[in-house]
């Protein structure tokens, strides 16, 4: 007990307090320390900063599109991969691979695949008469690319959790449903879906915890561009703090993000718990 608490207090609690402290003070670059107390000044500045608000919006769009997409795709593929045949184990094993590709590698490789000039994706699209498509260069498509890469990297993870959930479905319930004369649709609607809801909720929460940390894929694939089109909030704060050396405002933004994340996570945990208990 004690070692974990000491580590977490030292490396988690202390930094958070320090962040809040820096966010409330004037940062002195000559001593590299927070100096005077300035109250809410940094917060007022960042909340009026269009770049920060834009990055929050970008992050929101990414989360709202990518997470449901990955859930649907992941559970759908899990059903496909669950069909029993000789190659099932092999496919499952191969499906693990994208999940262990480091996000920064994923970003780099997809940047090549989506390259407007030399990329294979545009070549394939060209064969069917589409394109050339400016995947990374166009603001909307850059976001599409980011979500595409993230979905490639993370869907296998959802598949894995979903497979575990599907395999744990109790077979006697299905026999009961069949003997009661339920057709396939009714079985899916009234047996499979309710039984899987807690698994979906759990998978969603875990994906959420990972997705709010989105940084490396964006950095490697789009660098937040073009303009601010894919500038997720973590990337924006990183640039402000460590390129712009604006530690005061970076800390205020980080505190805002911390608060938002904690609040949403709290509600997600509550909802997920409730779903688990209801079914």
């Amino acid at each position, binding site marked *: *007990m004690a*070692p*974990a*608490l000491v*580590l*977490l207090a030292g*490396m*988690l609690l202390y930094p*958070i307090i*320090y*962040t809040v402290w*820096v966010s409330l003070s004037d940062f002195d670059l000559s001593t*590299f*320390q927070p100096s005077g107390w300035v109250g809410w000044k940094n917060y007022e500045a960042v909340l009026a900063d269009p770049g920060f608000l834009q990055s929050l919006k970008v992050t929101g769009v990414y989360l709202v599109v990518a997470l449901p997409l990955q859930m649907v795709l992941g559970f759908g593929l899990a059903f496909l991969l*669950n069909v029993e*045949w000789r*190659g099932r184990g092999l*496919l499952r*094993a191969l499906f*693990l*691979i994208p999940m262990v*590709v*480091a*996000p*920064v*590698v994923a*970003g*780099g*490789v997809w*940047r*090549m*695949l989506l390259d407007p000039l*030399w990329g294979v994706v545009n070549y394939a699209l060209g064969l069917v008469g589409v394109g050339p498509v400016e995947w990374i260069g166009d603001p909307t498509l850059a976001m599409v690319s980011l979500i595409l890469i993230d979905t490639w990297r993370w869907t*296998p993870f959802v598949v*894995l*959790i979903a497979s575990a*959930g599907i395999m744990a479905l109790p*077979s006697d319930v299905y026999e009961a449903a069949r003997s009661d004369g339920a057709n396939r649709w009714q*079985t*899916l609607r009234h047996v499979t879906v309710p039984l899987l809801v*807690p*698994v979906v909720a*759990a998978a969603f929460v875990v994906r959420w*915890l990972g997705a*709010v*940390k989105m*940084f*490396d894929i964006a*950095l*490697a*694939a789009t*660098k937040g561009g073009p303009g601010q089109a894919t500038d997720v909030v973590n990337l924006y704060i*990183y640039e402000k*703090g460590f390129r712009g050396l604006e530690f005061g405002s970076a*800390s205020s933004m*980080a505190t805002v*993000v*911390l608060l938002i994340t*904690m609040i949403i*996570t709290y509600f997600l945990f509550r909802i997920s718990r409730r779903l688990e208990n209801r079914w």
Partner: protein
Amino acid sequence: MVSTGRLGRAAAICGAILATLVFLFPVIYMVGISFKVPRDIFTVPPRWFSELTFDNYTSYFNQARILPRMLNTVIVAGGAAIISMVAGSMAGYALSRMRMRGAGVVAGLILASRAVPPIALVVPMFLVARRLGLTDQYITVILAYVTFLVPYVVWLMRAFFRSLPPELEEAAMIDGCNRFGAFFRIIVPCSLPGLVSTLIYCIILAWEELLFALILTNDKAVTIPVAIAGIAADTEHGGLWGPLSAVGVLTVLPVVVFALAVQKYLVKGLADGATKG
């Protein structure tokens, strides 16, 4: 399970194979590019079979000091994973067994810390490390990684220890073991599968981490993801696809081999990590 017709089954199998190929394609493509010379990379249409070269693996590697960086990553990931496992599994055990006041609050806080965005930690870590002269040192990166690994270990191992019957260590304690003895002699051996799967996932997470490493290292302790981010940032000039792929392959290869070798444990760890708690 859901019963499907013969035709439906065949379609599902085809779909599964197709989906797997689509998901594997980027990795296969990366391996392919890593063995190509530039004039075979930058062509339309793409050349599938071309002159084989190991240049991307050899000449570039010395120049970018890839191997020392690989070693750094091994040290950092291994160190962080081991520290987190020791501290995290002990805390997980305490939380699963002890009926003390505040245990619920502590558990809640540790779980909540899984939601702390790293960006909220990295500014003070950088400032403090800089003041203590600890930037670009293994220990700094290791301690930074512990912040996101420990909560994960606690969460997972708590669920795992709960599934073990308390009679196990009660018997040991009657035979004269204290709590610690019971933990290390009885509980740890019984939990080996859970411990192994958690350890593997910790190593993978630390192996791939970018944000902390990017900020806390600049030369000696630079890890592979940081090096890759640097190479990826260079693709604007068009030239570094080969080296990027080669480094990518070497980064991914050990993890893939490792992951496939311990697939059973890994799958269990990941699935439990998501659904138990």
